[in-house]
């Protein structure tokens, strides 16, 4: 407690320690994080705690965030790229309540971004940390159910099995059909599951300026990619890694080369594609970029900003 005299909520404000977890637990998690940073891509076991939310709601990411959060941090939480889905809202609320930190929806203003599924479109900086919520950290689990064996395979860098999975994809679909949780090789050594992010975001992990931390609560694993680290998506020479391509730009802000979500507008087949990264979309629109559907009344409710809704 003495380490954080200013940051702990005082007894009369409530009964939570700063950021919910006790200091010993946070120290334990920080040690796991440091080890993870020292061995990029290696899954460090840690004593995952029960959190006041169900597994699958980001308990791993929340514990990592809690361990690195300081009173002067600004937190952004996204789920599928959006700041206003249930999961993002509740985690943001959790840290507002237990740590009293500032929260934001703006990528550029955040010092810690906790994410489920997406990496923001805007380039992250050295001053930022990206925390991923991970459901299944073991990329080899698909083909090798034995934990003892997968750990040995990591230790000896026996990764042929990863390509077996990609081979199966091509054999069945004619191309590598894995679109999310697409395995990467980190720092020329460990093969890692980048959590269920779309493979569209894989290239952003490569040489990223921000520190990337991954937490899996149920599976009790933490791993990390230090800033400016080589991250290579696995592929075949004759079937090279490719990201998804979208035929049209974002319907609202006209952005190209971003990840788009399909939105059903009505029950007559009306639909549009909009930025999955809601902050990115708003930012562009506020700078005057408009997509071809921006004026469509059916899409008007999508175009409202987070603040307006809040």
């Amino acid at each position, binding site marked *: 407690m003495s380490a954080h005299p200013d940051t702990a909520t005082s007894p009369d404000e409530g009964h939570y320690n700063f950021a919910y977890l006790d200091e010993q637990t946070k120290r334990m998690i920080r040690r796991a994080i440091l080890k993870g940073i020292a061995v990029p891509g290696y899954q460090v076991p840690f004593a995952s705690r029960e959190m006041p939310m169900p597994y699958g709601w980001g308990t791993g990411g929340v514990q990592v965030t809690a361990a690195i959060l300081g009173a002067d941090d600004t937190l952004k939480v996204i789920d599928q790229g959006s700041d206003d889905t249930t999961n993002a809202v509740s985690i943001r609320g959790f840290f507002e309540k237990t740590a009293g930190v500032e929260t934001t929806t703006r990528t550029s203003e955040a010092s810690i971004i906790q994410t489920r599924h997406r990496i923001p479109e805007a380039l992250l900086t050295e001053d930022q940390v990206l925390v991923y919520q991970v459901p299944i950290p073991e990329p080899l689990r698909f083909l090798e159910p034995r934990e003892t064996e997968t750990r040995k395979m990591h230790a*000896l860098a026996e990764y042929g099995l990863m390509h077996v999975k990609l081979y199966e994809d091509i054999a069945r679909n004619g191309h590598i059909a894995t679109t999310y949780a697409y395995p990467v090789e980190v720092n020329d050594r460990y093969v890692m599951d980048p959590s269920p992010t779309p493979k569209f975001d894989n290239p952003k992990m490569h040489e990223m300026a921000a520190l990337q931390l991954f937490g899996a609560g149920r599976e009790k694993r933490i791993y990390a990619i230090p800033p400016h680290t080589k991250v290579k998506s696995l592929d075949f*020479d*004759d079937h090279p890694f490719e990201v998804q391509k979208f035929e049209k730009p974002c319907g609202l802000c006209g952005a190209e080369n971003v990840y788009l979500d399909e939105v059903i507008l009505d029950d007559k087949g009306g639909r549009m594609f909009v930025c999955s990264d809601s902050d990115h979309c708003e930012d562009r629109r506020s700078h005057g970029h408009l997509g071809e559907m921006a004026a469509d009344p059916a899409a008007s409710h999508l175009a409202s900003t987070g603040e307006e809704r809040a």
Partner: protein
Amino acid sequence: MTDQTTMLEPNFVPYQENDEPLLRVSGVTRYYGDRLGCTDISFNLWPGEVLAIVGESGSGKTTLLNCLSTRLAPTAGAIEYRMRDGSMRDLYQLTEADRRLLMRTDWGFVHQSPADGLRMTVSAGANVGERLMAVGNRHYGNIRATATDWLERVEIATDRIDDPPRAFSGGMRQRLQIARNLVTHPRLVFMDEPTGGLDVSVQARLLDMMRRLVADLGLSVIIVTHDLAVARLLSHRIMVMRHGKVIETGLTDQVLDDPREPYSQLLVSSILQA
């Protein structure tokens, strides 16, 4: 036509006085607690040689096979293997990484049950291609072409390449397991009752195929079987095991036609004549 010189000086001589064994086994002993698995087994295996280990259940033959293939550390004794660079290395002194590399490149292991040796949920092509990918082959087209070629060699229709082994018959699974092992051109293959549990006609086809592959590829094989007909068809040499010991060893047809030990005589006389 024949000519005098080739008759007197055959140009193909497999045997050389100074050649070296591929595998050198000395005093291998394995206890399970105070129960004996096998004891004091010593022999050499030469390149291109097929050795059958025969004996009834519990005679220690599978224990010995597991010790030899580094799946089970012996209690005592040494097993040395001639690496591709020609050096003789004690298998249990190798690092685990080297040992595992050896097992998936220079060695094969054909299990009695194909489910133990195959990935039942991935396609036949990926089963054959796995070893290639494990040693760094990263060209899908080449991997698939090699897998197709191997399916042909083991007489599996190539249009089954994308089917999982679960959809295969027992005989096909066993042939697929063999292809999966041979794709890296190993020099030594261990086989544990490879024809066990198969119909007689399926067995005959498998044996014939194995016999051809072994000869074509010049494989060294250590095959554990209780079926003397399998041993006769495939092996050059036989070791008869009983109570964890080798009781008789020699040229296959010599041991089968002129068995010396009481137990060997019993074993040979117990064969049903078809």
